[in-house]
């Protein structure tokens, strides 16, 4: 990082100071956002749902039927889940999520989206050549696995329920949750068997 502040940070500071003077913004509100989205809202919330679905078939059925109610029951903050739909991967079908028009993303269960999810490469290509894009991202699917892409074009948000990896039969829900990654719940990675 250079010593010179970027034009964007200066423009931000200009608006920020004007808004603080007009009592429309506080520094504390910015600190709260930083803390909330770094510590409380993130993929650890989605991972809780996935891990429980792996160990509890009844919960999995409810999650696939009405994830929105379950998110409300868990009380996850962060928003962007007016309606959440969970798509379960199987050996024959793989799901992957995008928002080509902006960068819609289920904040309450995944936190704020990573840079690549918002940038032109992923948004333009995952709806044209998903198998090639996933391979470039390190996920090579068998030819027998078909791909379903979910482009979040309205207010419904999507979460992928990844396959439980082999060799995890002895792990409990908490240990399983630690294996589950943000990228697997977007659908661009598989969960690795722990070594």
């Amino acid at each position, binding site marked *: 990082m250079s010593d010179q502040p970027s034009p964007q940070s200066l*423009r931000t500071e200009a608006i920020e100071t004007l*808004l603080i003077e007009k009592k429309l913004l506080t520094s504390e509100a*910015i600190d709260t956002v930083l803390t909330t989205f770094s510590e409380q809202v993130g993929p650890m919330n989605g991972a809780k749902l996935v891990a429980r679905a792996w160990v509890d078939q009844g919960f999995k059925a409810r999650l696939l039927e009405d994830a929105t109610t379950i998110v409300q029951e868990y009380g996850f903050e962060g928003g962007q889940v007016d309606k959440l739909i969970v798509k379960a991967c199987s050996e024959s079908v793989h799901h992957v999520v995008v928002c*080509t028009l902006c960068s819609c993303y289920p904040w309450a269960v995944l936190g704020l989206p990573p840079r690549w999810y918002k940038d032109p490469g992923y948004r333009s290509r995952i709806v044209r050549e998903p198998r090639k894009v996933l391979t470039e991202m390190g996920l090579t699917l068998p030819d027998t696995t*078909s791909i379903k892409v*979910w482009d979040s*074009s309205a207010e419904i948000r999507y979460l992928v329920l990844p396959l439980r990896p082999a060799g995890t039969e002895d792990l409990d829900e908490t240990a399983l949750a630690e294996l589950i990654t943000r990228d697997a719940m977007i659908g661009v990675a598989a969960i690795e068997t722990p070594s």
Partner: protein
Amino acid sequence: MDGIHDLGGQSGHSALGYLRNEPVFKDRWEATVFTMVRASAQAGAYTNIDQFRHAVERIEPKAYLEHGYYGRWLGAVETLFVEAGILTTAEITERAAHLGAGPDDLIAARPSLTKTQATGIPAKRNPVGEAPWFKVGDPVHTVQASPLGHTRLPGYARNKKGLITACQGLWPYPDLRAHGHGEQSQYLYTVSFKSLDLGFSEAFELNLDLFEPYLSLIETIL
């Protein structure tokens, strides 16, 4: 509107820039912008998400690509504060210059088209209290449209055939709500497309959530 934001299916953006780990906010200014967007809603600078998205879409294509996600939010939030009369471009530029910014550092967004000039795809009916027009299993055709205003029908899925796989109920209609016409709720459907029908060579299924005004029934000849 047609624009750079409508990235789905475009060629030429080859780099994915994929990183497994990255911080939630790269710099504090990104978190500041995020908070300012919330503050702008609280201050009444915009009243719904569609207005905000349309403000992002009105950013110059070059700036849209170069400034990144929070840079786009910064452009949009400035536009919304200025259009709401809460801040002026001049006072922001003056303050930025005072802080050390150069004269060319404006993060530009195109000015808003007026309500009468711009909407997205028009609604065909008021369906509140009425049944959905389509049912699961209906073959549908998406409209060929190029509206000046906001729409959530991506370019790559216009004038294409698909299949209704779910009705998701009534939702505020972005094509009108973005332009201050109220909620004007319309039925939303999940529509499944075969990639080959979209003109893409790789075989897969593509799903979109599309509003009723974007769709027409394909009549099947018995």
